[in-house]
């Protein structure tokens, strides 16, 4: 690395004629990857709006999209963690199906109450994720091969249990997870609380930095960011409230997003995940338990496969062989990569699943509304995945392998 630097010295911001401050604050690689994504979402929305006689953009379709597809970004949260390590988990699609199947069996056949069926499904997936993680971290088997084995094993198990049939889950408590809405006032209160919390903690942090004699980033950037996120949150909540309310599944996604963002960006464990993904040798020499970090991360991925499986059963009120599989795997990898998570590790953040999830859900929903043949859907999604990876590669080539957390 140092050799490369020597051959072609990087233009450090301390060069004789530094660019203006506002320009330096804009991260070229970040801009290069996010602007095309926003543009793509806008284009997709305009296209579907025109093709579906105005049914696409609106409270109802947005609400249905959130309800039907939020399991994908939830699963993508787990995948973000393995991608941050620079690893891959190919088994998540069928692991999600196996969770859905477990929940269905526990609820419909064993007549267990909803909390036990749900906990059982998530527990099974977490244990299976940890088992794969053990092979990968402690026994040093390649993740690609281990999770490919998991892919086949979980497929076989789920298909065997389902034996080609669909298991219906009549428990209304489970159905509520996928189909209910937050009360209007509660969702509005949550949104306002979130915005106030964001502003308060942000200002508190700035005060502490000032007290410690450290520089703060300009207040305008902070205010603009807080204002933009707050406005977006309020618009989305108000829009959804004008239909039936904020779907519970969307609230679950946001809650898990918040928790995992905190873990990834604010805790030593999260820092160690980025370190292992950035330079495993440096992480090891710094005394980080790299085996433990990798092991736990595959457990996290298993946990989120479980959560996604629960959401899937909650929405469909059934488990069937077509519910999840390789398509889901590709969708969640697309979601992560579209959101700016690098496949080579160490770059990206948890919130990226919202952006990527929105794009994939928009495609799913729009193509569904247009009744497009599913074979074309595969082609379109494949092309989008390749474009997203191209952006990742180009973004990295522009320099600055920044860990955006």
């Amino acid at each position, binding site marked *: 690395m140092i050799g490369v630097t020597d051959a072609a010295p990087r233009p450090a911001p301390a060069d004789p004629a530094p660019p203006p401050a506002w320009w330096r604050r804009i991260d070229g690689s970040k801009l290069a990857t996010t602007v095309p994504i926003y543009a793509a979402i806008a284009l997709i929305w305009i296209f579907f709006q025109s093709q579906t006689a105005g049914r696409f953009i609106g409270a109802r379709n947005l609400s249905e999209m959130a309800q039907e597809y939020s399991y994908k970004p939830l699963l993508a949260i787990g995948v973000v963690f393995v991608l941050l390590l620079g690893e891959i988990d190919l088994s998540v699609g069928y692991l999600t199906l196996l969770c859905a199947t477990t929940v269905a069996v526990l609820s419909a056949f064993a007549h267990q109450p909803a909390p036990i069926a749900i906990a059982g499904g998530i527990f099974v997936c977490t244990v299976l994720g940890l088992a794969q993680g053990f092979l990968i971290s402690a026994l040093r088997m390649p993740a690609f091969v281990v999770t490919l084995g998991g892919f086949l094993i979980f497929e076989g198990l789920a298909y065997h249990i389902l034996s080609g049939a669909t298991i219906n889950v009549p428990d209304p408590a489970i159905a509520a997870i996928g189909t209910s809405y937050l009360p209007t006032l509660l969702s509005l209160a949550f949104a306002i609380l979130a915005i106030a919390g964001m502003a308060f903690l942000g200002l508190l942090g700035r005060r502490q930095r000032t007290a410690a004699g450290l520089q703060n980033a300009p207040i305008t950037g902070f205010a603009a960011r807080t204002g933009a996120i707050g406005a977006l949150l309020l618009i989305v909540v108000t829009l959804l409230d004008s239909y039936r309310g904020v779907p519970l599944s969307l609230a679950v996604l946001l809650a898990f997003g918040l928790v995992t963002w905190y873990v990834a960006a604010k805790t030593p464990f999260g820092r160690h995940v980025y370190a292992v993904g950035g*330079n495993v040798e440096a992480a090891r020499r710094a005394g980080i338990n790299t085996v433990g970090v990798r092991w736990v991360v595959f457990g996290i991925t298993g946990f989120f496969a479980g959560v996604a499986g629960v959401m899937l059963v909650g929405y469909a009120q059934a488990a069937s062989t077509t519910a999840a599989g390789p398509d889901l795997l590709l969708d969640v990898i697309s979601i992560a990569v579209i959101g700016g998570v690098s496949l080579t590790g160490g770059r990206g953040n948890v919130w990226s699943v919202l952006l990527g999830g929105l794009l994939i859900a928009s495609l799913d929903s729009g193509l569904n509304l247009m009744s497009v043949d599913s074979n074309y859907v595969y082609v379109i999604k494949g092309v989008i995945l390749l474009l997203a990876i191209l952006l990742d590669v180009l973004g990295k080539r522009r320099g600055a392998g920044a860990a955006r957390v």
Partner: protein
Amino acid sequence: MVDSSTTSVPRLVVLDIKKSFGAVTVLRGVNFEARAGEVTALLGDNGAGKSTLIKCIAGTHIPDGGTISLDGVEQHFRTPSDATTAGIETIYQDLALCDNLDVVANLFLGRERRGSFAALDEISMEKTAKAALDQLHIIIPSVRSTVAQLSGGQRQSIAVAKAVLWAPKLVILDEPTAALGVAQQKQVLDLIKRLREAGLAVVVITHNIVDVMEVADVAIVMRLGRRVAKLRVADVSPEDIVAAITGAREFAEAASA
């Protein structure tokens, strides 16, 4: 604090270290010492056993025989972290930093400070990082730059600062100026001089005779698993050192030390 007189006990004393890998004997009973407030250069051709010796001192290899003492206390390192705990920090080229993390995160990697709610105490870490870099006169655009955005010399400086932050007794640098431009080499050499001024014992493994003449007080030369010379750099010419490395001339080992 700085005591470079030749009569005091050296901070690091390595006596009669032996190490074999299977049938290959790499170290045939090597002595080595490094004093506080001095830069000791470890020289030798490829295969002389420099890296193996350093890895024994850093706890990566466990020697087959001999003793390692730090400040007069005998040490038995089983792992690299044993050596770190005892106060020995080793900076390997390229292996020290995570490019994707910022300077503060790298300096505190594996030893992060925690605040409330299990969160990282970024403010306290950033403050300490700034103070540490100022003390070593390391100039970078921002402690929040990712390491990928820094030049080679800046990275090497950060790697050194990372080691020094933990107040070690002994710092070992493996080829610190290899693959750096001229200006950046000077940056790193100046930093090494400041480590000496701070009273640390510094060991530098290098192939670069110019570096040795510039920063080292003592040069210890190895050849084929043995120590063949210990020279006071002020008393010898670059040609003498090259002659010791290649074996063109024999030196009375202890005489010039």
